């Protein structure tokens, strides 16, 4: 048996684009006649390109049939610009519940991570339900399919809060329930666990459908179990949900009649009052906002006034502590205190590596220095090249003026 003989010249002539002075050939056209269609690697590559990113990215999991070179046109460029579509899950096969801390009605980043973990557990079929005490905003974009707002408990009353959450969880019949392993979330999780009589898998560092992993015995071993009913998720261990926003459809649970503390002696907590941290005395490692003085500062009296006026915690570089100008416990850096502050305000500090190590965890840095090329200026979100001795009185004047206007 013989194959029909190919005629390359005729084939070539048939794909020539008509009406051009220079001969051009359309190789994407499906060849009639014999032989395998010709691959077009460039078109295949272009077809794998993820639309709408400035840096080219290719989705290699997508196998492009080599004869389907038109795939590029099938991806309209406008798809990325359009607002992300809200994902709707009609009938989830099961629910993964999340009970966030949500301080002040907003999700903390730890809460978002727990929602990301719940999303990973839910997979394609499952839904994520969030149980908030009081209203909470932005739960849909964080990955919640359902939202069940419970009535907030007024005052500090962990017992009735536990009763409310436990009742709602029983009514919801979620397959898994995740809590953040924070001060409040970890407490609530354990209370709910002993109330429901379920084991709780605390401080999970890996959350996946095939198993949860937690450190134990002083981080010597890790324990892995199949996901149970209750678990708490460690901070900064699981990524937040990054997909399109979800529906966060409001749920109502009928069996939710909060029994008013079924204890024998209900009023055991007489009073509870919040005492905010005093920035002047709080340990440096716990401080929220640190104002720090360096070798470029000569006027330490004004510095102390600025610290007091800004309601900040004082810090210093090693030079000042060695000279005895500032107490040793204020030293920031590798051989002093490593900060966990939100904002660090450096006055006259050059930013030696040993000092910057102490500031590495600070999200925002403001620096005042006379040297444009100081490392601290480079590190700062707001950098001011100016003499600190004139900026400090200006700050004080401005704060005083504002206080006067509002008095």
């Amino acid at each position, binding site marked *: 048996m013989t194959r029909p003989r190919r005629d390359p010249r005729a084939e070539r002539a048939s794909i020539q684009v008509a009406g051009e002075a220079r001969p051009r050939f359309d190789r994407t056209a499906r060849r009639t006649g014999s032989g395998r269609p010709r691959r077009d690697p460039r078109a295949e590559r272009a077809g794998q390109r993820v639309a709408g990113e400035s840096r080219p990215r290719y989705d290699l999991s997508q196998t492009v049939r080599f004869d389907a070179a038109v795939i590029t046109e099938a991806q309209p460029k406008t798809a990325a610009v359009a607002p992300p579509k809200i994902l709707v899950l009609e009938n989830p096969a099961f629910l993964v519940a999340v009970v966030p801390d949500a301080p002040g009605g907003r999700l903390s980043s730890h809460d978002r991570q727990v929602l990301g973990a719940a999303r990973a557990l839910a997979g394609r079929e499952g839904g994520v339900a969030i149980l908030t005490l009081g209203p909470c905003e932005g739960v849909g974009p964080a990955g919640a399919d359902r939202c069940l707002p419970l009535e907030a408990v007024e005052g*500090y009353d*962990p017992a009735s809060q536990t009763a409310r959450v436990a009742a709602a969880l029983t009514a919801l019949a979620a397959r898994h329930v995740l809590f953040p392993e924070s*001060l409040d979330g970890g407490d609530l999780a354990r209370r709910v666990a*002993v109330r429901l009589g379920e084991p*709780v898998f*605390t*401080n999970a560092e890996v959350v996946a459908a095939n198993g949860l992993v937690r*450190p134990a*015995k*002083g*981080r*010597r*071993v*890790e*324990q*892995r179990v199949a996901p*149970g009913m209750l678990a708490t998720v460690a901070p*900064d*261990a*699981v990524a937040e949900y*990054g997909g399109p926003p979800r529906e966060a459809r409001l749920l109502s649970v009928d069996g939710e009649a909060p029994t008013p503390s079924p204890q024998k002696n209900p*009023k*055991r*907590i007489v*009073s509870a*009052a*919040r*005492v905010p941290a005093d920035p002047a005395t*709080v*340990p440096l490692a*716990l*401080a*929220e*906002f640190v104002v720090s003085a360096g070798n470029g500062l000569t006027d330490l009296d004004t510095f102390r006034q600025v610290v007091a006026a800004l*309601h900040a915690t004082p810090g210093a570089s090693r030079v000042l502590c060695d000279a005895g100008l500032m107490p040793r416990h204020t030293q920031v850096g590798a051989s002093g205190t490593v900060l966990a502050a939100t*904002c660090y*305000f450096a006055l006259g500090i050059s930013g030696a590596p040993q000092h910057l190590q102490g500031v*590495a965890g600070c*999200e*925002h*840095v*403001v620096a005042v220095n006379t040297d*444009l090329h100081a490392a601290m200026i480079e*590190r*700062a*979100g*707001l*950098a*001011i*090249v*100016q003499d600190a001795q004139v*900026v400090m*009185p*200006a*700050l004080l*004047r*401005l704060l005083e003026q*504002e*206080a006067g206007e*509002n008095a």
Partner: protein
Amino acid sequence: MKIVVLLSAGRHPVSGAPVLPRMEAQAIRIAAALGEAVGLHAGPDAEAVREALGLGLTHIEHIAVADGLDPVPALAARLAAMAPDLVLAGRRGQGGPESGIVPYALAEALDLLLIPDVVAVSGGPDTLTLDQSLGRGALRRVAVRGPVLATVHPDAAAPLAYAFGKARRGTIELVGAAAKATDVPEAVVEERPYRRRPKLVKGAPTGGSAAERLKAATGEGGSATKGRLLVEPDPEEAAREILAHLRQIGVLADASKSAK
């Protein structure tokens, strides 16, 4: 006032040597300031908690419970007999499963009020004031009536110094053994050596290049690359910029609010 401090056989987080967990040592300090306190340990060997005698306790009661058994029923029975006004425990164990569930199980078994993460306790037998840590040095001051179980937070005052003489004078008394414990069906736990996992980098772009992730990790990305630089501004203008920036971050209260 009757105070009981729950003691556990801990392991040092670095060396693995037997040691009294720091939070329990801190609990002893809190208890010693309030009055006479008794230690309570359930476990195979009381030698594990002898260190507590040098840190401020004079007497420890020991319930013999075989290794690997749940200590909660034995502890609950003994606590019910002692009827203390205040029970102190660490917020987590150290060197064991470290789940921190024992105080909660005890509070449920005895119907005690539980206040977690306490850094200081004051007051008398009828009304106690507990300072509860809310993180970052903020506190919640809770006044409670009646018996209470509190767990101690690491931010509490540092433990008392170890005193050898006191440790020798202190006594450990065996107060009983747990009845043949019923075997609780344990969840299937698979254990393997701990493996460090990469820490989540905050603010790293998802799917960014390695260089972008490195920048985010070293803090050179984010605010620093987008940072504002003012060269030789007028001092008044600089002050205005600084205050506006601090307010935008949220570490400084608004001028109108702070005046109130």
